[in-house]
């Protein structure tokens, strides 16, 4: 455990360092001077730096932070550190919508994919809400969500098996990647950033819910309403990110958990801190994915899964 002020100082420095690293390394490595020049339009590296690596790095920071916050909110509400936005079925719902769109309308423009995925993700959340209502217990919600996610997941597998022709594109999207994402995607994500202060504002109430519903009510909180707002915020954060980058696995699970181990579970500190951890993780994942075997680009989602799956297993065993 480290003190919050130290954590924020250290993680800010690390994030700046990693962002600069991410700007100078890739399939083509550039010197620090080239990176600086790349911000100006007359430089020969203008495209690589300003049009390509900069928006991609910023997107990694924003998406990483949003997914992590979403995970922290869900874990706070479900009161289980093993929960993640995946238990809401949002990313699987978005994935199913995207896969259906790609396989049944192969000639349709891929430019509409983010909107289709976003609608799919939000629909999945609405279905969950209709099934559970506002008054069900957290555990019922989690189990229903996991069941729905499994249902969407098997529907995805079914579609991929029936229509193998389009599998490549669909699989690529399903692993989650930052390839080819730039300023337009970053801009379309901006309105959703409003959810971050909303999420951070829930910190105090989430602490009270952590004490159990009865205590929370006694201390002046309305658990059902807080739960609804938190989950709705988490759904918005996840759905908007998945729509842009595809489902980047495990990020929403490991980022908040790692943060909790670093600085403890008080939500006033945990929620802002997890933004940094999520951003750091995704910037690293994308950097590694781009530089491990250039010019081949691996999906960042593959990287987070490679780190995330063993971490998850270790978590399961150490919790026993």
């Amino acid at each position, binding site marked *: 455990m480290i003190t919050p002020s130290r954590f924020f100082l250290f993680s800010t420095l690390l994030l700046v360092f990693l962002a600069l690293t991410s700007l100078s390394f*890739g*399939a*083509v490595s550039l010197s620090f001077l080239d990176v600086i020049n790349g911000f100006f339009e007359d430089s*020969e590296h203008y*495209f*690589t730096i300003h*049009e*390509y*690596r900069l928006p991609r790095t910023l997107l990694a920071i924003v998406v990483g932070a949003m997914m992590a916050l979403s995970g922290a909110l869900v874990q706070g509400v479900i009161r289980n550190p093993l929960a993640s936005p995946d238990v809401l079925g949002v990313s699987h719902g978005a994935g199913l919508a995207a896969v259906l769109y790609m396989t049944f309308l*192969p000639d349709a*423009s*891929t*430019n509409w*994919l983010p909107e289709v995925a976003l609608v799919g993700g939000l629909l999945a959340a609405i279905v969950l809400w209709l099934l559970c209502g506002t008054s069900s217990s957290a555990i019922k919600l989690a189990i229903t969500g996991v069941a729905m996610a499994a249902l969407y997941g098997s529907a995805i597998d079914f579609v991929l098996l029936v229509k*193998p*022709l389009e599998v*490549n*594109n669909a699989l*690529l999207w399903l692993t989650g*990647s930052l*390839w*080819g994402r*730039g300023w*337009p995607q970053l801009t379309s994500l901006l309105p959703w950033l409003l959810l971050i202060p909303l999420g951070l504002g829930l910190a105090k109430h989430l602490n009270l819910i952590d004490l159990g519903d009865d205590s929370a009510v006694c201390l002046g909180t309305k658990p059902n309403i807080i739960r609804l707002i938190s989950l709705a915020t988490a759904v918005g954060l996840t759905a908007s990110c998945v729509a842009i980058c595809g489902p980047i696995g495990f990020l929403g699970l490991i980022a908040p958990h790692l943060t909790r181990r670093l600085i403890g579970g008080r939500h006033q500190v945990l929620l802002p801190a997890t933004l940094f951890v999520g951003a750091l993780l995704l910037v690293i994942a994308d950097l590694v994915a781009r530089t491990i*075997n*250039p*010019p*081949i*680009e691996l999906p960042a989602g593959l990287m987070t899964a490679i780190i995330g799956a063993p971490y998850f297993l270790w978590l399961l065993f150490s919790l026993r």
Partner: protein
Amino acid sequence: MLRSFKLLCLSVLIFALPSLASAVDVEDEKGTFSIEYTPKRIVVLELSFADALAAVGLGPIGIADDKEKSRVLPAVREAIGDWTSVGMRSQPSLEVIASLKPDLIIADIGRHEAVYEDLKKIAPTLMLRSRTETYEDNLAAAAIIGKVVNKNEAMQARLAKHHELMQSYKQTLTVSASFQFGVVNSDLLYLHTEDSYAAGVIKAMGLENAKTGAKDKAYLPVSLEQLLGVNPDYLIVGEYTQPNALSNWKKEPLWKILKSVKNDHISYVNPNTWSRCRGIMAAEQMAQDLVKILTI
């Protein structure tokens, strides 16, 4: 005064004309594509486009070859010299493309539409259809590429030669039987149906494609029983892996009652040439393979 003005106008015209004359407008998947110069540094994001450039003696400086140079057809490799790999066809590295400073990019609408805006920032981008194209589509795309690289006459001549060559191969083949091409990996056999590129070449050679019963699908995964349902006279297989699904099928009694097996009309070809490459030279190689299959 007037005379010198006239002279000025004339000289401007004379200097302006050649550049005007080289302006080319073609229709691509995104509307009208126009280019006012002859591109010299070309990056292609599908193998079929490299084939089209090779057909008129041009070499792209970058190819999305999945970082495996052997994916480019040997005949094409010979014609174009060395190139830089720009990564996977599905996710080409935009950084590497930009670092090559191309003056033309040829991309596939099926794979690269999402990065069209980015590609345009690097260089003028010609969007054609490659991945689900038929034999005829491919030749039409080659003709467009010929115009864009200012080699229209050479391309038309090459296409005429191609038709002549295919015709000469066709004349040696007088078999009335059904043909089916498929690729096999470790678990599945994918038949290339009547809508596929390979079937287009088979048809161009005056041969008949087996009826797979697939609708609007270029590739159809089948089991051994379904293969028996199609039951082509000749089965042409491209093996991506070894051993593959066929290794197991060969042990089954059903395998022995396939017409192609009974008459020993099953032959193996390079799956890369037959399925991935697509192009003028690829089609000629496939035609040669067919001649070899039917004359031995």
